């Protein structure tokens, strides 16, 4: 299955019954798939008049308790920032997919990770955070999308999927998660379905009283802490006995795996640490590598160097951090990376 189709089908199976989105390459296959699939499962597909309208529709759908999703790519995601901030402020679940492209501006449509900051530091205004999932294969694109709906509902928060056109357009075999029976989804006692037998509800974010807004902010912070405790996720490859760790996520991690195979053949002890949640960032797990004797870290990102800040924050000044950054949609080969890694390896790792 093509990545974008796998993502869309996984959403349907997770119980997504509302999709609104606006075309933009490289994720057009998501709305296209949804336009055909939603009517089959009795869900709603709307092509919004813009990304802003789309996320606003998703907000409306989410308030009714419906699992809802929108998807776009970098410029379109910028336009959704106000909406994401509102979803976070009103504590409404939703899944927002970003198939990142080379940027700033219109940029291009190649695979890129240049929206890392925007995704992890709330590109929208205000004190909020959103869980960010970064899949590295079409299989994981499906699985993490599926999971995103559960996390969104559990914590009443928008959840981001950060991937790119390379994964979205790659076709690979996928084992699809099972179709959820909507009746088995946990009830949402906050949802609005008309005020029969109870006073009117509200879903708001305007809190003029600064004391109450501050309380609301701290409440969100507590929630974010809980998410950090319960949902942080990463994967480790060949780190046992490794002398050096590549830190990479998503498409970059996939390339890194290829590089590792070459490096292994050449006898280098290089492992990889792959954050799956970019926020909450697996800082402790990464820091613990220091205790496991790894001092040398190479951050490999498809941008000019963004995640490296989280790596530095995690390592707290310890270890040595270098980067291999390729922005603008440039996608280096495993060999390119392997060369950079081995150069560094021989400079730094004592025999």
């Amino acid at each position, binding site marked *: 299955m093509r990545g974008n189709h796998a993502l869309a089908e996984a959403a349907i199976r997770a119980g997504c019954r509302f999709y609104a989105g606006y075309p933009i390459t490289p994720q057009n296959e998501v709305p296209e798939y949804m336009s055909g699939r939603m009517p089959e499962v009795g869900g709603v597909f709307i092509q919004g*008049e813009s990304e*802003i309208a789309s996320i606003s529709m998703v*907000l409306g759908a989410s*308030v*009714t308790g419906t699992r809802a999703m929108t998807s776009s790519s970098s410029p379109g995601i910028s336009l959704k920032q106000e909406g994401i901030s509102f979803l976070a402020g009103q504590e409404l679940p939703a899944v927002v997919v970003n198939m990142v492209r080379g940027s700033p501006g219109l940029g291009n449509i190649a695979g890129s990770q240049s929206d890392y900051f925007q995704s992890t530091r709330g590109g929208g205004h205000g004190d909020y955070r959103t869980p960010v999932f970064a899949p590295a294969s079409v299989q994981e694109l499906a699985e993490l999308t599926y999971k995103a709906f559960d996390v969104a509902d559990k914590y009443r928060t928008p959840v981001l999927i950060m991937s790119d056109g390379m994964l979205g357009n790659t076709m690979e075999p996928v084992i699809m998660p099972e179709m959820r029976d909507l009746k088995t989804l946990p009830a949402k006692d906050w949802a*609005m379905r*008309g*005020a029969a*037998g109870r006073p009117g509800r509200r879903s708001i974010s305007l809190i003029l009283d600064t004391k109450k807004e501050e309380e609301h902010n701290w409440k969100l912070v507590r929630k974010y802490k809980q998410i950090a405790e319960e949902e942080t996720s990463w994967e480790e490859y060949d780190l046992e006995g490794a002398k050096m760790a590549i830190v990479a996520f998503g498409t970059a991690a996939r390339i890194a795996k290829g590089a590792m195979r070459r490096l292994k053949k050449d006898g280098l002890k290089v492992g990889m640490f792959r954050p799956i949640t970019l926020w909450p960032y697996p800082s402790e797990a990464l820091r613990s590598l220091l205790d496991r004797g790894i001092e040398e870290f190479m951050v490999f990102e498809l941008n000019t160097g963004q995640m490296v800040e989280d790596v530095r924050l995690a390592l707290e000044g310890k270890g040595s951090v270098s980067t291999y950054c390729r922005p603008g949609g440039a996608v280096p080969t495993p060999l390119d990376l392997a060369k950079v890694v081995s150069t560094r390896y021989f400079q730094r790792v004592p025999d």
Partner: protein
Amino acid sequence: MEQVYKKPKYLKDVSSHYCPGCGHSIVHRLMMEVFEEMGVGEKVIGVAPAGCAVLAYVYMDVDVIEAAHGRGGAVATGVKRCLPDHVVFSYQGDGDLAAIGTAETIHAANRGENITVIFINNAIYGMTGGQMAPTTLMGMKATTAPAGRSAKREGYTLDISHLVAELPGAAYVERVMVTSPKTIVKAKKAIRKAFEVQMAGKGFTLVEVLSPCPTNWKMKPLDACRWVETEMVEHFQPGVLADRTGK
């Protein structure tokens, strides 16, 4: 003696934050009366705007969602598509609906979304303190049009309801005012009609209410009402702008 008027059931018993004589308050009350009379109050889901009516949920005892500025048409679309049997409205000011929300308004209407938009036209940005609105009359002063609106600089007074009325998805569009017993009664009828059309599933409905904003017009409330009836109606003629409910 028999009680001939009492506060409608869905209007909460709290004092409002609206300025004296503000049209918002009147329209809130009319809507709640209509919901009570139609017996639909517990099926209503409303969308409140950024604007003076941002706190609408404090007064209306129905489910209310706060939309980002201008996005009422889209939020209401999301709600209604998920709950097609509920009564969904979006309540919006002129800045909200006709400036930042232009695209959302036009497209919700064009899709024929089966929702009702209550559009409070007070020719000004009330909440933010009297800036020019798309609906500000020619020559009228605003804090961002200190010399008075001129076509060359600020463009023309926008009649967005007229544009909406041109769209085939618009089932019912009427312009009313809330400036006197007579006009208020008429306004209520229009609001009721719009919700009835929605319940009948006939498509997009919009009621534009010419509404006094004494504060930002710097007038006494009664003078503001007279100004609506003499000046505003010159550009915004009340009446039915579209009725496609026959089909």
